[in-house]
Every structure is written in C-alpha cells, then in structure tokens.
C-alpha cells in the first residue's frame, strides 16, 4: 500500500552491475562478493613480493576523509592506495573544517573541486557514505570506511577473505558474532556478507542491552549465553566493547561482561575443536578476549590485518574501474 516508489536500484552499481562505490555489502550479489574476494586473493600474493606496487590507480587521487579517529583502517587504506600507485591525501576532518562550522556537503564539494577521484570516508553518522555518493559527489568513487552503526563493508570483506582462506566453502559453516552488536557497524556488515555468501548458520551472542531490536529480521539466531551460542561453531567473531558503555546502564561492569561474554579458552572449548577466532581490532584484552586466545594458535587476528590491505586494494581498483566506465557512458559529466 506504500505511497512511495520502491527504493532506487542500488546506487553503488553501474548500469551493467559493476561496483562504482562501495557503501554497504547489503544488496550485492554473491558473484560480486566472490569477485572482490578473488581479486583480493591476487593482491595477497602480490604483497608478499619484493615489489609491492601495481599501476592500477596511477595518476588518480585518493582522499582519505576521516571524520572519526582511526589508526588501523586509515593506515591500511593508505597503504592499499599507495600499492595501487595512487596519490593519497589523508584528511582528519574531525579537527578541521567541521569545527569551523563547515557542513559535510561544503567540505566534500571543496575536495571535489580539487579533482579527487576517490573518497574513502569514515563518519560517525549512519548513512554518511550514502549521502555523499547520492547527493554530493556521484562522479567520485566513494568507499565506506565505516559510517555510524550502519556499515563497515571492507572490514566484513576482509573477514570473509580470512574465513575463506581457512575454511573454504561457507555453506557448512556455523559462525557466531559475539559482543556489542547494538553499536557495531562491523557486525551488521558481517551478517550481510555471511548471508550473501551462504553461510550455514549465523548467530549473535550478547545480553539484551547490546542487541538491537528485530535483529532476527537480518537472518540470525539470537543467543544470550556463550555455552549455547558457541556450541559447534566453526568461526567465532568477537567485537570490540567500548569502555564508555559501562558509564551508561548497558552493562554493570567490565568484570561481569568478561565473566559472561569474554572469550577465554574455557569458553572456546564449547566451539568445534578446529574453530578459529577473529576480532576486528583494536582488542581490549581482558574485556572481550583473553590474551591466551588472542595470541593463541586459533587466532586469525593478524591474518585479518594483512588481508585488510588486499581487500581494500581490490574494492578500490574495482570501484575506480566501474566509475570510469560510467563516466565514459556519460560524456557530459566530464
């Protein structure tokens, strides 16, 4: 009965279905996600070589626009762009324009006027990357490096690459995502990616205060206890718990959270014997994960970091190629 039209065709794809922005995993096809993983795999091999550069983005300008502080994501995006031979500009906007009262739109229009080719955007508001791609700079490739609680698609894809490297096919996998689901853009993107890639079962484990309402609608099974939730799982994906959460009524204390949901070797014993452990970092040792687990033989946390560069190289090169195809089809934009 809706009075409005259906949502427009995905704004992150060209008319022929190529990636031209990378805003969210949601709505993309299994073929496209697999293409991202395959492309990333080829860059993983390349990164181990003596010469680590390819000329795919030569002559292009990539602007890393971080409205929120980040070390890991920013540095891997910077490295990825440089290994693709792009010119890279890092802007930490949280301490610059917005504090002078400039709107997001004005900031973006200014950077566009400098003939940037790609924006890598992190912003504290959900939908910021969509807003930029849709209303500000449709002719510049936009890569979402994390928007509010909404999406962190490159993190999810590097997680998928890591799982695929260690477990192969997704179809038989049981995957548990543990911790602060409510505030996590990582969890949302992981859920979409696992669903699209056909994971056998996706679980979330958290107390009700850290679960958003209607999370089941995303296709996950909800557990409140680690013992039941980790039973027979192949992959345990931990989430970072921000310490500020203790100051509100979400949790009574770090100690209680660790006791109930912190991943220790004891709790990991509920999972399959060959289950692997992942974490997007930065980790809080003794809050959501025990050091013995984080540094243990089943931890893939360092593999995730390495894969992060390859996945970011893959989506940047694919989006730039899609964006160029689109622009060639619409010469009036040049």
């Amino acid at each position, binding site marked *: *009965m809706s009075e409005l039209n259906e949502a427009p065709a995905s704004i992150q794809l060209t008319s022929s279905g190529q990636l031209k922005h990378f805003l969210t995993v949601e709505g993309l096809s299994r073929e496209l996600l697999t293409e991202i993983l395959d492309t990333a795999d080829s860059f993983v091999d390349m990164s181990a070589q003596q010469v680590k550069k390819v000329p795919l983005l030569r002559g292009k300008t990539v602007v890393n626009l971080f409205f929120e502080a980040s070390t890991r994501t920013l540095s891997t995006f910077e490295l990825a762009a440089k290994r693709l031979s792009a010119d890279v500009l890092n802007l930490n906007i949280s301490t610059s324009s917005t504090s002078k009262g400039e709107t997001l739109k004005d900031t973006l229009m200014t950077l566009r006027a400098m003939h940037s080719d790609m924006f890598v955007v992190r912003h504290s508001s959900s939908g910021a990357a*969509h*807003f930029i791609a849709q209303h500000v700079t449709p002719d510049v490739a936009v890569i979402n490096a994390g928007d*509010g609680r909404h999406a962190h698609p490159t993190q999810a894809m590097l997680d998928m690459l890591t799982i695929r490297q260690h477990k192969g096919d997704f179809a038989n996998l049981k995957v548990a995502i543990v911790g602060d689901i409510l505030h996590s853009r990582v969890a949302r993107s992981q859920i979409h990616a696992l669903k699209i890639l056909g994971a056998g079962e996706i679980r979330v484990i958290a107390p009700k205060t850290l679960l958003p309402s209607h999370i089941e609608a995303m296709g996950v099974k909800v557990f409140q206890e680690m013992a039941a939730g980790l039973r027979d799982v192949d992959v345990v994906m931990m989430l970072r718990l921000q310490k500020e959460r203790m100051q509100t009524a979400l949790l009574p204390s770090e100690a209680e959270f660790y006791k109930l949901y912190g991943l220790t070797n004891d709790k990991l014993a509920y999972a399959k014997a060959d289950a692997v452990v992942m974490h997007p970092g930065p980790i809080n040792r003794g809050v959501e994960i025990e050091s013995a687990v984080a540094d243990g033989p089943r931890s893939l946390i360092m593999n995730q970091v390495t894969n992060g560069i390859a996945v970011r190289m893959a989506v940047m090169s694919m989006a730039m190629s899609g964006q160029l195809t689109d622009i060639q089809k619409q010469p009036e934009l040049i």
Partner: protein
Amino acid sequence: MKIKIEGGRVIDPTQELDQITDLYVDSGVIVAIGDAPDGFGSAEVIDAQGKVVCAGLIDLCAHMREPGFTRKGTIASETAAAAAGGITTLVTPPTTSPCIDNPAVAELIQDRAADAGFARVLPMGALTRDLGGEQLAPLHALSSSGCIAFTNARQPVPSSLVLLRCLEYAATHDLLVIFQPQDAALAHNGCIHDGANATRMGLNSIPETAETIEVARCLLLVEQTGVRAHFGQLSCDRSIRLIEAAQQRGLNITADVAVHHLLLCDEDVSEFDAALHLIPPLRSPLDRAGLRQGLVTDTLQAICSDHQPQDLISKQAPFADTEPGLSGLETLLPLSLKLVEQQLLALPQLIEKLTSAPARILGLDDGTLEIGSRADICIFDPAETWTLNPEKLRSNGWNTPFAGKTLTGRVKVTLLGGKVVYRD
C-alpha cells in the same frame, strides 16, 4: 463584495448537506445555499462545476517558523501555502524563538498573519515559561491575547507535579491543553521507529513506549484534573487504544493524526532518505493500521498536516544529522483524499475531519457552511491529477517525501472571510 459559487458539489457535514447547488456570499458571510437571497443582485461568479465546495480546512498543527526561524519559513510564506492548500485556519505551536510564552509574541504572530491576509493563524501558547517545564506560563494573559490552546510541544514537562499544577491552572480557566506526547529519555537522539529498518541502517531509534508512556501519564493527570485535553499527531496503535479506553471511561479528550502517518510506515524509510526523517517517526504497518482504524471509529477526530518547513541545508546531511519534519500544507488535501480513494472514509466524513471536527476541538464556530457563518471556503477538483514539484510549492519548505509523485485532487479557489485568497 458579493460572490456566487455556482454549480459545485456542496458538502457540509454539519448540516448533512451533500448536493450540487449554488452558494452565496455577501460581506464575508455565507448568506444562502440554493436560491439567491432577495435583492442579492449582481455578483462575482465562481464556476464550481465538477468541483467540491466545502468549508475552509482547519489544520491543528502547522509550524510557521516565525519569529526566530525565518530562513525556514515566514508567516507570509506559510500562510500563502495554506491558502494554496485550501486551509483557512491553522494552529501553530509555541516552538518559535522567542517561544509563545508572552502575549507580545502571540499578538505579533496574529498581526503578521492578518497583514499577509492568506489564513487565520491561531497560536498555541507555551504551557511553561520558555517551554522549560518548570514554571507556569501566564496562561490567562496568553489566552486573552488569542492563544487558542496550550502545550509544552514535544518537550514533556519532566516533573509530574509541575504538569499537574499546569493542568489544574488550565482547568481553572477552562483552557484547552494539547499534548504532543514523547518521553524525552526514551526518544533521546532517536530519528526513526524502533524496527527492523532502524536496526538494518544502524540508526538510533524511538520505541513506541516513548509515546505511549507519556500518553498514559498525561491521561491519568487529565482524569485527575478534569482539564479539556487534546492529543496531537499520535503515531502508535497502542496510543489509540489508551485514548479509546479513556474516552470510554468518559474523559473529555480528543486526538488527531498527521496525514502522512495514515499512508506511510517505517518500511518506507529506505536508503537514508532524509525527507522521511520525521518526528514522531513513521511507525510499523500495524501502527498505521491502528491509526486508520482509529480514524474510522472516531477515536481520532481530526487529520492535520504537521507542517514543518525546512530550508535546504537542514535536510542536506546524513539522515540523523538532518532536521525532522515535512512540508505538508499543500499536500494535506490530496493526501487525505487517498483515504477516500482507498474507501476508508466517505468524502463527507473526510471533510468533517478536516473542517468541523478540528473546529469543535478548538471551540470555534468555523468549519461549517451554515447560513450566517464566516465565508471560509475551499473549492477543489477531486479528480484533477498533478505532479508535486517541490520548487513550485508556495511554502518555503521544499522538504517533502512526495516530490515527483502524482497526486489526485487540487485546490482551485480558497476564500477567507469572503475574499478570494487563492486561485489556481
């Protein structure tokens, strides 16, 4: 000034009138329906064949933005929009700057509206000083200066004791209190209904309890004080049930709903479309069904626009960072007509909810075409289709989720006090 409105379908629920006939206006007053009164003589003729002639619409909630926020809208621009929407009387909330907590602001708003001459603007006075929720505003003085009702807008009075005192004082002077219920803590930072879409998009949500808890608290205090009370822009099915139960207990309360809540739901909020950032938020399909049912059972007596014009920049940001609201004066009638097309209401029933029902809620004599009443009249073509182009709106607010949509029903002529204030 004499006017003959010729050959229209004249609908007036207050007289159970629905027939094709002529209507005569003289000196700002309706003087006859059917045959011309003796000695009417020559007059301006408005051809209303194929059109509906009804009382001018009365909108229970429309933000004018003046004083204080004139970059979003002015009394002149927004009343011009009202006239184009067939609205002749509108009630404006006290959330101006300064807010309507002293007679000077109330008088300024009415004076500016009178100068513009497009529509009558009735201010709602603030229930507490500066809408701060602590100190009683001068309700009697504000009432004497034209405030039609009192509200603390969508900023609930935190202390139930202070709220009780406000209601007792309003009851003392038989003043109408309007609630726009929303619990501050539960709604904090929220921008969308607490549903699957909010979770998917990672947006801070507003649960239905943000509304129902405040509805329940206000209802209990209304019952204790006996004050005349009205609930504005309800969005949840459970709110309707609370209101219905209270009405059945004999409480003297009324309620309205914004027209877009009858047509849209939270599932429509996709792709972070800031035009659909609304407060109260669009709720679930079940809530929408409850609101529509409440309209049929007359638990909800009136339909309003909840007009909230915004300038462009207020909507150009990521969803949660935009300002809420839509520009609704010029779409109130065509959107409401969808309810007739969907066979939820008959046309006379709809017209009642847009004219005589809001008049009754406010205690006004308007909203009728009875002989001797003020000639506030709306003439519209119920079949004309048109495409909504925001840039062609008279309102300064171009913020509408219906941009580019084809609407059916178009206002052709609006008369305010017997004077043509809009002609399509």
